[in-house]
């Protein structure tokens, strides 16, 4: 049986390659003996033959399924600037009386403003997270929000966005816990309180906890009054 044209081309290419190889061999056999001196040679390590890499398995999953905003995050204009300074009486002076308001009523605690700093950069990061979310890049949105959380860990807005992201992604337990954390930071901000309780209600509904959902909605309603 005669070879096909392709087989013939392959055969021809192989012969040509072998011709090159033979030429190389001729010179090589002579030159290899005096190829290099040991003094100047770079050190060489023993190594095993390479194996082709296996695909890397992903670590803890963060699902990349499209996210839908099920709850609108409150449009709070500024950041939380209500941090309470409780530890401001140094040493023995802690026992020293300071002027206080009306007798037998709770003592007002001073506010501590967060540095304006954090406000601008956090607003930027939250915006970038919103953009990433809109672009269907939930992982990037989460990374941006975590960056914001590191800068302003007291900022409820960051937790609100994170919780909403996770809820939209079906991670209801995580969303509820984030909402609880946010709630603990938004004691004096009813808008956030309402939002977080409604988000907790939605998370519980997702988990099949109807009673818990109703309780959370009742808390939201309480705040709305």
């Amino acid at each position, binding site marked *: 049986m005669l070879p096909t044209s392709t087989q013939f081309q392959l055969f021809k290419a192989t012969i040509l390659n072998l011709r090159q190889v033979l030429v190389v061999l001729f010179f090589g056999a002579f030159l290899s003996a005096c190829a290099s001196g040991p003094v100047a*040679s770079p050190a060489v390590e*023993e190594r095993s033959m390479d194996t*082709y890499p296996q695909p*890397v398995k992903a670590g803890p999953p963060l699902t990349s399924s499209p996210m839908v905003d099920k709850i609108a995050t409150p449009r709070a204009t500024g950041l939380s600037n209500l*941090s309470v*300074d409780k530890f401001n*009486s140094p040493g023995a002076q802690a026992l020293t009386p300071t002027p206080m308001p009306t007798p037998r009523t709770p003592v007002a605690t001073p506010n501590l403003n967060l540095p*304006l700093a954090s406000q601008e950069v956090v607003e930027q990061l939250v915006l970038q997270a919103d953009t990433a979310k809109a672009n269907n890049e939930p992982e990037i949105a989460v990374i941006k929000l975590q960056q914001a959380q590191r800068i302003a860990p007291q900022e409820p807005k960051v937790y609100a966005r994170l919780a909403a992201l996770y809820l939209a992604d079906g991670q209801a337990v995580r969303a509820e816990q984030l909402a609880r*954390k946010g709630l603990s930071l938004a004691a004096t901000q009813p808008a956030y309180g309402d939002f977080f309780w409604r988000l907790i209600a939605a998370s519980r509904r997702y988990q099949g906890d109807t009673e818990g959902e109703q309780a959370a909605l009742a808390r939201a309603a309480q705040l709305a009054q």
Partner: protein
Amino acid sequence: MAQHPHKANKFWRFVWQLLTVLAVCTLVLLIWLDAQVRHRFEGHRWTLPAKVYARPLELYVGKQLADGQLAYELQQLGYRAVQQLHKPGQYRLQNNRLEIYTRGFHFVDASEVSNRQEVILQAGRILSMHDTQGQDLHLIRLEPQLIGGIYPSHNEDRELVQLDDLPAGFIQTLLAVEDRTYYEHLGISPAGIARAMAVNFKAGRIVQGGSTITQQLVKNFYLSAEQTLWRKLIEAPMALLLNNHYSKDEILEVYLNEVFLGQQGKRAIHGFGLASWYYFGQPLNELALHQTALLVGMIKGPSYYNPKRYPQRAKQRRDLVLKILADVGMISDTEMQDLQSKPLQLTKVTQYSRYPAYMDLVRQQLQQAYKTNDLSNQGLRVFTTIDPWAQYQANKAMQKSLTSLTTQYGDQNKLQAALVLSQRHNGEVLAVVGDRDGGYAGHNWALDDSRQVGSLIKPIIHLTALASERFHLLSPLDDSPLTIPQPDGSVWQPANYDGQSHGVVPMYQALVKSYNIANVRLGMSLGVDKVLEQLSALGVKQNWEPYPSRLLGALELSPMEVNQVYQTMANNGFYNPLSIVRDVTKANGQLLSHYPYQVRQAADPQATYILQQELALIGRQGTARGAYAYLPTEQIVAGKTGTTNDQRDSWFSGFSGRHVATVWMGNTDATPTPLTGSSGALQVWGRLLSKLPYEKDEVNQPPGVDWFRTNPTTGTIIDADCEGLVLPFNQTRPPAKANCDN
């Protein structure tokens, strides 16, 4: 007698057959060599270890920086202090003004481009930031510092570079020294070999080799280090084959990444990219010509010319390379002299192996999700939470404290120590010291060893009490002698550290003064099992039997576990698992894993908030007030000391600003030490916290808590204009009200 023609024919036939066999064997050999050359060159060339990075330094308006932090971090990143900025990797820090030419970096979420920027500081806080056009900047993220790698068994490491990454004059220098006819020969250089042979003949020994760069690459890339005849036989044909298949630039680029340039312990430094970091602490493209000359000169003998070990010898070699450059006309004689007068300018920063305890944690976390092979072969990039400044200060605080203790108590050669520092609001681990020397990669006392925690358990008793709706900070506790019968018929009689009993004391005072008997009584009234349940909820899960002695810390935890528990208490009762890794990407930057922020409410927020005030009182009035020897009075110290029986363990765990830290000290064989929690661990803690930026960043007061002025003696709320201690209470169960004097 004439030879028989038949025999002659037979001989020549044998020779012909022999030659034919040889030719066939040679042919097969060449085909095999050809396959080898192409397979390795076109396949997966190197196994790249995972690169482990520290957290990037983020600069933004309002950020607080510690004194000296900025300069330290820039030096660690290999930035050069200059008078005028010309290129990336330079900075100028004068008074409160930082000018920086950043290098840029490809982060998971975005690429930071190389740029000139200006940062204005005031009292350690960033006041403003802008670029060269005067545009305000919100955030500058510097590239993260490379802190280590996870290596394959051969321990080769390299930082891949491309021809475009090379500094000016690099190729010319390399070729002038190693292979002047590189772009002309076919992979081997007969002229070079002849020249080498002549030199060797003249010298009577082998003093010069005739290897081309292609041959060197073949030797390093394909062959073993053994000087065997076989290796020599196949080196040249392989070089010719390589040259035949690939372009000169392709071969050169592989050579630049393959060449061996040094050894750091087990780690082999390959390629100019990594060598540049290893010797100069800078990327290759930032090197000046005299630095390039040193690296090129080292090819001849990386160990012999190691500039870290033999600086004089290395400088001579570098100067010789510079002379070669002058001889070939690449630089003038004046330039040569100028460059030869420069010092070697080696970096003092050790990039790797500085944080063994932290790297233990990184490996531990990664091995839960990745195969060991993937970690050591695929060039993964691992972005961690380690804060290089905090880690540096943690090591320093430990060293200083140990020196001071030695002065005070004499040589304590059995004394070991460990430290864990984390971010209060998200549980990111910022620093770990695994033993008294800090840089020792042996037993990790922060992770691998558990010791009795002593009084560190008491805040958990108080948290359980405050959450139980039965107690508040002024609840009276009995500190009189106590006897508890044991199931085996014996009795347990806890005693106070000072051997005294203090009668009835308000609950907060029992913690502030760390009274054992009052706290055991409190714990017994709650139930030991309830206290242990609370402890588990805070982040450590173990099956402890509910013995009464647990209430005085007769249970063993590692410093890492203790830090987890205090982390949760510092974070208003929200548990964040201590985390070490933020992201893992492929070598090309593609995200593989992101470790998300995790949170779980683990304790009643009101109770935890009130407990935090108790812990702060320990700093103000109790066993932790010694921390103020290092810290300004306006800074919060909220935590608890722990001293176990016979002073076998010295503990302190607590928080301040945005940091939670735990320190342990004790003898390796658990014998008594001269240290209490205050005189040992607290000293390290105070020293460390004094060097970290302090953000007055207390957690918001949760709803349902009110502050009242109180009379601790009577345990009552009093009028605000009376004298007394201001304390927080749960709105639903405040103490009774009374007049000032009652």
